[in-house]
């Protein structure tokens, strides 16, 4: 059934406004915004036709101009499969979303090798520290860190990755106009500024539960290597792992304590044959097996070990394992103001880090 103005249909089917020259992206966004069209239908629709043609040949209600305006106003890029901005690395995947939304630079994901750092939303101090360190070291080594901007491991990985280096990549579940979780709104903006935040959901779509597994699959598609830092048995990270395994993407896991419930999942993965990750070098080795050669960040450890500043004695007490202020007081004999001042100076020098009230060497 053809209608005179396919671009602007109200629910009752009447024309709302005059058709202007809307780009293909506008029709892609409109198609993705139709509640009745799921990811598979959308793929089918866009497999043969351009978005404008697909829209014209369908009879879904919706105001393309308004949907397009909503995305444009918020700076949300729309990439459709076959369009110019669509990420290259998704091209070959049969399950890749037909329409992708992006805040930041949609091409950011093409330039560097990508490693997903994922894990539980209630991590231990150990997990937070490892995620932040891997995030920072990978970014410095020229690897884009991919994660989900969730609380816990995801957030820590991005905190580390936004410090410097390769652009960070985030994949989120809901619409890009509404940061979720709210607590990470600032981090979200920083990732969008330095790299890109992708989502399969158009603006205005709330973060619903079923969208997380979909998000996790996209995350796996965008990554050359997937590393699980901490995960409970049957945690959400296992969706990412399953999607990665289907695609033959290498999956690594960070070993953890056998007593820690947050390491049940990762230790299980190791037993299942995932490669163990005990340092960034392990991840870089996995990348090199894929043909991506990156110099292992050299001298970082040595340079830090040689740190020689006014707070040398305090620095010597710190280790890569987080230590509480209480233990620091006992080990150094300093009073709290002196101790806090010293830690602040070490943090500013980039050799120490605060992990939820505990301190560790970076």
């Amino acid at each position, binding site marked *: 059934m053809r209608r005179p103005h396919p671009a602007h249909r109200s629910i009752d089917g009447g024309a709302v406004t005059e058709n202007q020259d809307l780009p293909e992206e506008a029709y892609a966004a409109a198609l993705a915004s139709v509640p009745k069209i799921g990811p598979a239908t959308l793929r089918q629709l866009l497999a043969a036709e351009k978005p404008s043609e697909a829209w014209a040949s369908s009879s879904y209600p919706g105001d393309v101009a308004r949907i397009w305006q909503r995305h444009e106003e918020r700076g949300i890029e729309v990439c459709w499969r076959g369009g110019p901005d669509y990420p290259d690395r998704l091209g070959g995947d049969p399950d890749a979303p037909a329409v992708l939304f992006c805040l930041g630079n949609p091409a950011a994901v093409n330039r560097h090798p990508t490693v997903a750092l994922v894990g539980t939303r*209630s*991590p231990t101090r150990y*997990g937070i520290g490892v995620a932040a360190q891997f995030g920072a070291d990978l970014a410095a080594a020229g690897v884009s860190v991919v994660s989900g901007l969730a609380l816990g491991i995801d957030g820590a990985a991005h905190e580390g990755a936004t410090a410097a280096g390769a652009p960070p990549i985030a994949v989120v579940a809901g619409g890009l106009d509404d940061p979720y979780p709210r607590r990470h709104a600032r981090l979200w903006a920083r990732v969008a500024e330095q790299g890109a935040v992708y989502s399969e959901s158009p603006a205005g779509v709330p973060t619903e539960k079923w969208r997380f597994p979909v998000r996790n699959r996209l995350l796996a598609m965008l990554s050359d290597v997937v590393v699980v830092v901490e995960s409970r048995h049957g945690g959400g990270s296992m969706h990412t792992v399953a999607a990665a395994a289907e695609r033959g993407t290498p999956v690594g896991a960070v070993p953890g304590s056998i007593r820690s*419930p947050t*390491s049940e999942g990762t230790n299980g993965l190791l037993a299942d044959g995932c490669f163990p990750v005990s340092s960034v070098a392990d991840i870089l080795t996995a990348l090199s097996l894929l043909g991506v050669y990156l110099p292992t960040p050299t001298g970082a450890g040595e340079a830090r070990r040689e740190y020689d500043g006014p707070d040398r004695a305090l620095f010597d007490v710190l280790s890569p394992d987080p230590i509480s202020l*209480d233990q620091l007081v006992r080990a150094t004999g300093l009073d*709290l103001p002196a101790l*806090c*001042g010293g830690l602040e100076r070490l943090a500013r020098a980039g050799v120490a880090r605060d992990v939820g*009230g505990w301190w560790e060497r970076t």
Partner: protein
Amino acid sequence: MLAAISAATLTGTVGRPVSVEVHVSNGLPGFTIVGLPDAAVRESRDRVRAALLSSGLPWPLRRVTVNLAPSGVRKGGAGLDLAIAVGVLVATGELPPGCTEGLTFCGELGLNGSLRHVPGMIALADAAAPRGLVVPLGDAREASLVRGDGARGVSSLADLVRILRTGAAWPTIPAAVPSPPPPDLADLADVRGQALGRHALEVAAAGRHHVLMVGPPGSGKTMLAERLPGLLPTLTAEQSLVVTRVHSAAACLGPDGALVTRPPFRAPHHRASIVALVGGGSWSLRPGEISLATHGVLFLDEMGEFPVAALEALRQPLEEGVIRVSRAGGTVTFPAHFLLVAAMNPCPCGEGVFTGACACTAAARARYTRRLSAPLLDRFDLVVPLFRPDPDQLLDGPPGESTAVSAAKVAAARGRAAARAGGDPPLHPDGARLLASKLREGALTARGLHKVSRVARTVADLMGAEQVGEEHVCDALTLRTARSTVAP
């Protein structure tokens, strides 16, 4: 056959003079009380009659009318018994008319004519007539705190009648019962480790900063909070009177009726009603826990479990130092100038996010912390994370500094702050630079900046520093690190 006797009644923590007018006339024998008496006052008819008869005094077989003036104010409690009895005696000519001139009578009567304790004696004494007041012997000490020699105590109605008839000497007020040695104040030396927690207590005591402690069960939150009053200086004479007045009105003063000189410590349970917390009641408005904690410490354990309305009710007192309780019967203002110490778990299961043992979902955690509104959280200058001490520290660690040592530090810091008389110590450029960078990073809001600077000043005072340096600012920032855990 008319008599007018001065008495006093309690509204909140304030005494109000009441004139008890007794009229005895011919007519059918009867006894009525008018002038907005509450149930306890109405029942005093029977007590007064029995007390007179037991004391060997005649009861008039005539019509007795008692009016409590001003008649628009509700009168409560049994404290008016004595004045009514004396009024009947004067009106029937059993007592000479002039002998009650300028005296206020307060006391509850027993059926045998003995006089019993009345709460709020300090406030009642404030409202007493110029010559002084006559109270039960046990309450005389309390009354003498504000009226000195004007306070007179008698132990029974018969004694009182004898003294008023003959002009005999008033019984001497019993010397203060040597109050039992203060219950062993918990000492800070019992706390092993917890450097940050101890430090937070010292800063809180030195600068009157409200503290919120966030930590898993068994990390020593309650233990630390109980030791905070020991760090506070002894109350000044003025504070002492305020505290004693409130405690007297709430009838929770010690048996000896002595002044309260140590800062009180109140720890209401989280199921306490809002009225029990902030004060109230339908007619006789009673001070609540927050007023009883005035000039002392109010400890809210398991703050996350308190009803949201109760927590929100704390905001006005935290800001103004008083709580206004309004009821149909009127509005009273109670003092509520307390140091708030609260403790809560980081999440419903108590384990906290960082131990790995937390079984709570993110939504459950959010729900738990949402009970603390941002404005309430803003009242806490110190939001301190506490962790369980290491086992070796617990078993073999050296005992920590004792309360005496810490209290001396706090006293010295308070002295330094007082010596400046409100002036602020200079901020060292390094400290200013650090604050500016935190502000620019967005790690601090304008209000946060103000709070951190205040705490940093206190830390500098504690350390005996002349100016607020970088390390003092760092310390102040560390003392609020748990904010991110509990901020909604």
